């Protein structure tokens, strides 16, 4: 099956998902499920080390193609997106049943999924950027699911600004990279890695690309948006903000890892920020009690781990990245969905207030424990193998003691978080909750149950996932085929010792969790000087600059705006005429024709505008000018133009008269003599300038190439005799499309202004 078609179908299924989702039908989970099956069909081919490709011309003149390529890494991501997507769609059909605006929600969710697929399948960097930004946009819509809440609006805006800002930096990096390599093809770049990595601009490119990836993958200090995005409904948090979208930055880094692997800037940036993010996430996670925010910080720790692993060169790190990525998506999506169930059934997700839920919801407890065991990295879950791989990579790295120390802290905190989500909430004596809890329906349990079981099945039988998915993906990250035996038991190794140490530290820390938490949340500096506060300060600064420049430039007087606009246009015209010396007199031969009567009418109408005593008379007189111009068009053989002019004039007179009839316009002219003189000078200047320009234009010989072309080709190519309309709807249809879009926007904007004015004058609530 054609990859471009798969992406197209994903996008095109948005209306279907919106329709089914609007009625909360679990059938809509078929949309991602069908896509997942479709990608599974590619798996045997990809496992043999082959890549599926498809390409369409997009902007051939710039060398940009809509090229798609499915290799091991893309396949892992595509399966995660569609697989977790299936679980999430199914879950949401029950979870969000009572919510408003569901069709819009599911449309955005499906568009997000399609954009994610496009991003991980794109083989053209610019195409990747387009899909990348689309995921940011849809994430904005989904975080802002409840726009009436201020926190929701702020989180949506923050997420958008941070990720799109990073995306812009990344676009700059992509363009430089494309200029150096002469092509935007990702597989082409990898083929020429030595040349690119040796280029003097390589460090700049790395910094720009990493900025985009770090913003998207919530690396410190850009991490606060991810924690704040937890205001979104739980299905969104599970899907976008743990399993898929935040991994897009990791995907980009992993994708370009073969090109920049081992480059000094690459290693320093990735290991530095990755390690920092792990520590920051670990500290912040221990301050929280809200289950979703705790999990969000654990996601930040994991994203840091992934970035750190990509920064470390070597085959082992590639293996660790892919294994950890898959494992994390499985258990984290599962745990988020469990947190949602707890919230949904008990009415709270404050872990400090929860306990003993295993009696009321035994199945959920089972799933929660299975997910948590994988997260804590305990055998026989696949999470154990991933953690061992991380330690193995760390031990083999150049500054191994530092990497291992950071990983130890981060993994110990992961154990604590796993205990909070499972032990804290489900074990111990039951505590009173706002609602009486019980296990949720099948639709909500199925997804997390399958995800948790996969963690166990893959742990018991690693070969199921290793040869078909993980090894081909790791080969794509490393840039060459690799051989590794993914297994739970490697004998008595230093990694096993570290695992035991992690577990001991984690359990000990969980024992005194309440004390650690109260001490850490007492640190006020984080709220006062943390990056979230910096963001707020920056937004306040932006607004005060806007306020200052509005006060400096915008007087609010329509008359002065018109005056400035016309005066600047007149001056620019004169300046061009004088500096370019373009003025010429046309020949006035053959000017004495009957149409000259219209010119007289025009002049008379203009004088009437000047002499008008009130607005109504002025508008009527100005309308007369327009009608006279239309007559002139008619006599000069442009009936269409005349027709349009007539319609526009009629409509604008009707609307203007209606406005004058309602708004409190002053009927008499209140300008002082000096002001009248100034306005007259500006008007006269503009008139003279326009006249001179028109005369110069008429003095030029007429270039008939375009009109000859249209006259000759109109009927054969477009089957129409009306040249003007044929140009509008056919030859230049794209321009017209843009124009009507602008027209529609202008109508909506004008309506918004009027609505705002009315609110302001009637004193209604804003």
């Amino acid at each position: 099956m054609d990859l471009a078609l798969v992406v197209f179908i994903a996008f095109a299924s948005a209306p279907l998902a919106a329709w089914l989702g609007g009625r909360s039908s679990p059938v809509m989970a078929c949309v991602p499920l069908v896509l997942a099956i479709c990608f599974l069909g590619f798996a045997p081919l990809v496992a043999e080390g082959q890549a599926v490709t498809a390409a369409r011309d997009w902007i051939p003149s710039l060398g940009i193609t809509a090229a798609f390529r499915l290799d091991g890494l893309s396949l892992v991501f595509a399966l995660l997106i569609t697989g977790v997507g299936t679980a999430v769609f199914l879950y949401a059909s029950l979870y969000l049943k009572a919510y408003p605006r569901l069709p819009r929600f599911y449309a955005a969710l499906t568009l997000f999924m399609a954009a994610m697929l496009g991003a991980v399948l794109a083989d053209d960097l610019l195409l990747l950027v387009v899909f990348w930004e689309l995921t940011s946009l849809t994430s904005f819509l989904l975080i802002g699911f409840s726009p009436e809440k201020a926190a929701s609006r702020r989180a949506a805006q923050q997420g958008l600004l941070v990720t799109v800002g990073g995306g812009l930096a990344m676009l700059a990096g992509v363009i430089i990279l494309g200029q150096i390599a002469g092509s935007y093809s990702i597989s082409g770049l990898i083929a020429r890695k030595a040349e690119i990595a040796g280029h003097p601009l390589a460090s700049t490119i790395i910094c720009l690309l990493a900025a985009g990836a770090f913003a998207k993958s919530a690396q410190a200090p850009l991490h606060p948006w991810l924690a704040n995005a937890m205001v979104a409904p739980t299905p969104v948090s599970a899907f976008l903000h743990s399993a898929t979208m935040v991994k897009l930055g990791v995907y980009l880094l992993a994708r370009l890892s073969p090109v920049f692997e081992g480059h000094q800037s690459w290693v320093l940036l990735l290991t530095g920020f990755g390690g920092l993010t792990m520590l920051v996430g670990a500290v912040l996670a221990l301050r929280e009690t809200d289950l979703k925010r705790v999990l969000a910080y654990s996601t930040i720790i994991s994203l840091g781990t992934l970035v750190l692993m990509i920064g470390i060169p070597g085959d082992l790190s590639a293996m660790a990245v892919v294994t950890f990525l898959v494992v994390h998506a499985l258990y984290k999506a599962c745990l988020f969905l469990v947190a949602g169930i707890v919230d949904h059934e008990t009415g709270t997700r404050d872990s400090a207030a929860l306990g003993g839920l295993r009696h009321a919801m035994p199945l959920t407890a089972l799933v929660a424990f299975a997910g948590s065991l994988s997260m804590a990295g305990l055998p026989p879950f696949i999470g154990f193998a991933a953690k061992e791989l991380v330690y193995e990579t760390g031990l083999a790295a150049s500054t191994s003691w530092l990497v291992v120390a950071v990983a130890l802290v981060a993994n110990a905190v992961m154990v604590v978080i796993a205990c909070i989500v499972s032990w804290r909430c489900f074990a111990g004596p039951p505590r009173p909750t706002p609602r009486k809890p019980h296990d949720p329906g099948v639709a909500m349990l199925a997804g997390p149950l399958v995800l948790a079981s996969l963690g166990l099945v893959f742990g018991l039988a690693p070969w199921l996932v290793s040869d078909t998915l993980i090894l081909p993906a790791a080969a794509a990250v490393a840039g060459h085929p690799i051989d590794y035996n993914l297994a739970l038991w490697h004998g008595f190794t230093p990694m096993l010792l570290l695992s035991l140490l992690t577990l001991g530290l984690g359990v000990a820390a969980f024992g005194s969790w309440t004390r650690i938490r109260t001490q850490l949340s007492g640190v006020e500096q984080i709220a006062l000087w943390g990056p979230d506060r910096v963001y707020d300060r920056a937004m306040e600064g932006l607004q005060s600059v806007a306020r200052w420049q509005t006060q400096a430039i915008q007087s609010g007087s329509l008359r002065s705006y018109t005056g400035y606009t016309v005066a600047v246009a007149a001056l620019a015209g004169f300046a061009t005429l004088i500096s370019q010396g373009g003025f010429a007199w046309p020949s006035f031969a053959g000017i004495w024709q009957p149409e000259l009567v219209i010119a007289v009418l025009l002049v008379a109408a203009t004088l009437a505008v000047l002499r008008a005593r009130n607005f109504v008379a002025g508008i009527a007189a100005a309308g007369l000018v327009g009608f006279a111009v239309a007559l002139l068009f008619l006599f000069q053989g442009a009936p269409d133009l005349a027709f349009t002019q007539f319609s526009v004039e009629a409509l604008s007179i009707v609307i203007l008269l209606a406005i004058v009839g309602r708004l409190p316009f002053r009927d008499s002219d209140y300008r002082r003599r000096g002001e009248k003189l100034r306005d007259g000078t500006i008007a006269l200047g503009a008139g003279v300038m326009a006249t001179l320009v028109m005369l110069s234009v008429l003095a030029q010989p007429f270039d008939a190439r375009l009109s000859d072309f249209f006259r000759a080709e109109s009927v054969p190519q477009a089957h129409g005799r009306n040249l003007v309309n044929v140009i509008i709807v056919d030859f230049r249809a794209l321009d017209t499309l843009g124009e009507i879009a602008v027209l529609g926007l202008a109508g909506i904007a004008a309506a918004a202004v009027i609505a705002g004015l009315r609110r302001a004058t009637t004193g209604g609530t804003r």
Partner: protein
Amino acid sequence: MNSLILLTSSRIVLPVAILFSVYVLLRGHNEPGGGFIGGLIAAAGIAVHSLPRGRNALVRLLRVSPKALIGSGLMLALLSGLPGLLLAEPFLQHQWAFPGGLPLSTTLVFDVGVYLCVIGAVLTFLAYYLEA
């Protein structure tokens, strides 16, 4: 604006304007006219009708929000470009068919889109301007 003259005359102006606008829209490909002009004429007719009657009359007359006209117009114009893409030609390359000599084309779909968009833009503005 609730003058008796306008109230009475607009009752006749509206159907004439709508009919004329459709005529202008349809003849546009070969004779002076087209979606843009047609849209303006229809908008003027509807504006004259709803000025003395208010916003509710406008919404009742249209049965949809004027904003929906903008959206559907843009959508039609976009859709009219897709057949070209499907036939591996550039976007908005218009396609023609002549079943029994009757010329049918995506051009007309595009022009109807322009027509609706123009009406929608004018009336969106007008609807907010008119008092409820």
